[in-house]
């Protein structure tokens, strides 16, 4: 069973990196595009590939083992479907980032980025993908063109890997039964109930649409409030103890 737990953590990591990569690719070509974004994309991609290779090795090892029980095998097949779906999304996003990267080179003054309204940086998203606190940027200034050739090579690598996987591993993906039922995402561990002080209603006919859950700059205020509350309870407890004890 240690095998499945290890697999699951690796798959979670791959899943996280895939999601972050998608967010980064969405920012390509818009006004939040920049040198840093291109570097973030490159680093996230490399991390994703490392995770992919690690996952693939682990899973093929588990699936090749003929002596696993039926339940175990079903579980491994489910993990395999998770892995391949992640890889599909990664592959498509990589191809699209190549296309958009080619269309929007950064150094050409006559090509303008699309004014989408997004102006912030994507550092925090990339930091989440790389599991670091802060991102360090150390790339050359022509990363937007130099990176594209590498990207093409990586895309063909990923394509080959997926073909190989399909040939070598005999798993029928449609036979896998999901463990989550419809609406499972609502039972997440996210703090979905806290409405915060700041409400942005960007689109005027759905004013309740953008109620933010646990926004970053309000986290501080809630922390301080919680701390004060706890302190008061502790003091009340101590006084009560003295009253009763004394």
């Amino acid at each position, binding site marked *: 069973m240690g095998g499945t737990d290890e697999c699951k953590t690796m798959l979670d990591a791959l899943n996280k990196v*895939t999601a*972050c990569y998608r967010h980064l690719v969405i920012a390509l070509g818009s006004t939040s595009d920049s040198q840093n974004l291109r570097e973030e994309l490159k680093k996230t991609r490399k991390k994703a590939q490392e995770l992919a290779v690690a996952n693939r090795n682990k899973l093929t090892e588990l699936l090749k083992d003929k002596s696993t029980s039926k339940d175990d095998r079903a579980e491994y097949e489910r993990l395999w479907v998770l892995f391949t779906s992640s890889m599909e999304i990664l592959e498509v996003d990589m191809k699209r980032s190549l296309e958009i990267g080619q269309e929007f080179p950064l150094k050409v003054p006559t090509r*303008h980025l699309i004014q989408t309204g997004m102006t912030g940086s994507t550092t925090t998203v990339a930091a989440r993908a790389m599991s670091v606190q802060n991102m360090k940027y150390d790339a050359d200034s022509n990363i937007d063109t130099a990176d594209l050739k590498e990207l093409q090579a990586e895309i063909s690598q990923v394509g080959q890997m997926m073909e190989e996987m399909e040939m070598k591993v005999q798993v029928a993906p449609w036979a896998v039964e*999901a463990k989550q039922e419809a609406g499972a995402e609502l039972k997440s561990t996210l703090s979905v109930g806290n409405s915060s002080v700041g409400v942005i209603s960007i*689109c005027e006919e759905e004013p309740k649409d953008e109620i933010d859950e646990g926004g970053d700059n309000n986290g501080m205020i809630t922390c301080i409030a919680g701390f004060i509350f706890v302190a008061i309870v502790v003091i009340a407890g101590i006084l009560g103890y003295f009253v009763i004890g004394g």
Partner: protein
Amino acid sequence: MTIRNVRDHGQRFRPRMACLKKVEAVMLEMQDPKTGVKSQPQKLVITTIPHAITGEDVVTWLANRYTIEAEEAWALGTMLVAFGYIYPLQDHKRLVIKPDTALYRFQTPYFWPAQQWPVEDTDYAIYLAKRNIRKKGVLEMHEQEQYNGLHKWMNHKWDFIVMQAKEQYRAGKERKKPDRAVFDCQERAYWVVHRPPPGTVSAMDYGLERMVDPNAEEKETSDFFRRIMIFTQQSIMRPRVKSSVSIGALVKYSITCNKHDPFLAPCLPSNPWVTDDVTYWLLNMANVDIPTKMRVERWTFSFGELLSDPRGRDDFRLFLKKEFSGENLAFWEACEDLKWGTAATMNEKAQQVYKTFLARGAPRWINIDGKTMEVTVKGLKHPHRYVLDAAQTHIFMLMKKDSYGRYLKSPVFKDTQKRAIGPDQHRFSVSQLEANARKRRPSISPIIVRQQEKEERARMATSGPVDITQVMSKLSNKGKEVPPPKK
């Protein structure tokens, strides 16, 4: 996992979307800070978000840039919105451009409708799951239906979809609040374009997928030039008609059929594709007893129209029955049956036709000239699908020149005309339209319709004599006490 046997590599191209590359060029021009569209910040309760553009700015820019009229610029702007390159900030479900101070914003290139990237259902499922999280389980009705449907047929991927939705949601929260709001709007606009709510018209309808990119430059090999040469030679050899004649015919056709075109005139009672109300189809079914006024009017346009409409043909058959000259129409129908029928039954059908209509002393003998009869009988020795074509054309012209005129003046037709109904235009409110969309049901299976037609034909075959020959033979045989010839 999708079946990857067809190596896609973005090669499934959608023909009608070849204009997208040109639209992208327009979009890039609009971004120029000096010559592009002027943007303004959008002021919200707490923050301001930059890069909002007004509808009238877009329309004026287009009109100036391409020196076109304001109306055309308006249509072009609506196309940009309908394709999803610009999305409205208010009234996000109506993808039109309003040439006033309504606000719009440019869509990020990832969400542009690109020709070679088909929109995946996996992504839609992830989006719906994210929306479920944000709206705490309260989705719109069509979204809920789609969600349930996707959960059923994508069940094997559902774990992945839930995991990815949660991760994307968490990753999205890492960005600053104004950017988060913009991203939510962008994603929602993308899915309004590609999974439109029911009752809206989508600009994303395209035909069959192709394996060739219509935007790719073709290499100029000798084969390419050879094809051009063949094409031009064939164009020279084509028979030509004076343009005054052909244009005159087009104009006459347009004038006659103007009110009958559902694009140009309102369809009575209402267009089912727009209002989801099928009264129009029910009133115009093939075996309906009382046709609509418009349908009857179409029968007067030409004989071909009358024959191609099954209800019209029924009416004509009734008229011919009263005149005891039904054999012409029966022969015509038999020829059609032979042309369109299965190859296995062809020989049998051809023999049947000969025995019934063409042979000397046949029960339903048709009157065609000697030369055509000779050609047809000779052809029937080796029957094929089009062996009766000459005879059919002759009979068609006969009916057209003779019976058609009399039919239009006959009491049968006038009675049908009088009884025809002219339904009123439906006026649905928005809530009624939604109710209609919910009540959509599939129509009767075509298998049942075909069975009904067969029964109908069998019934007609056993009804009384319809031809003059049959009546005469009946009358003449009455005295001789011989049973009338069996049909």
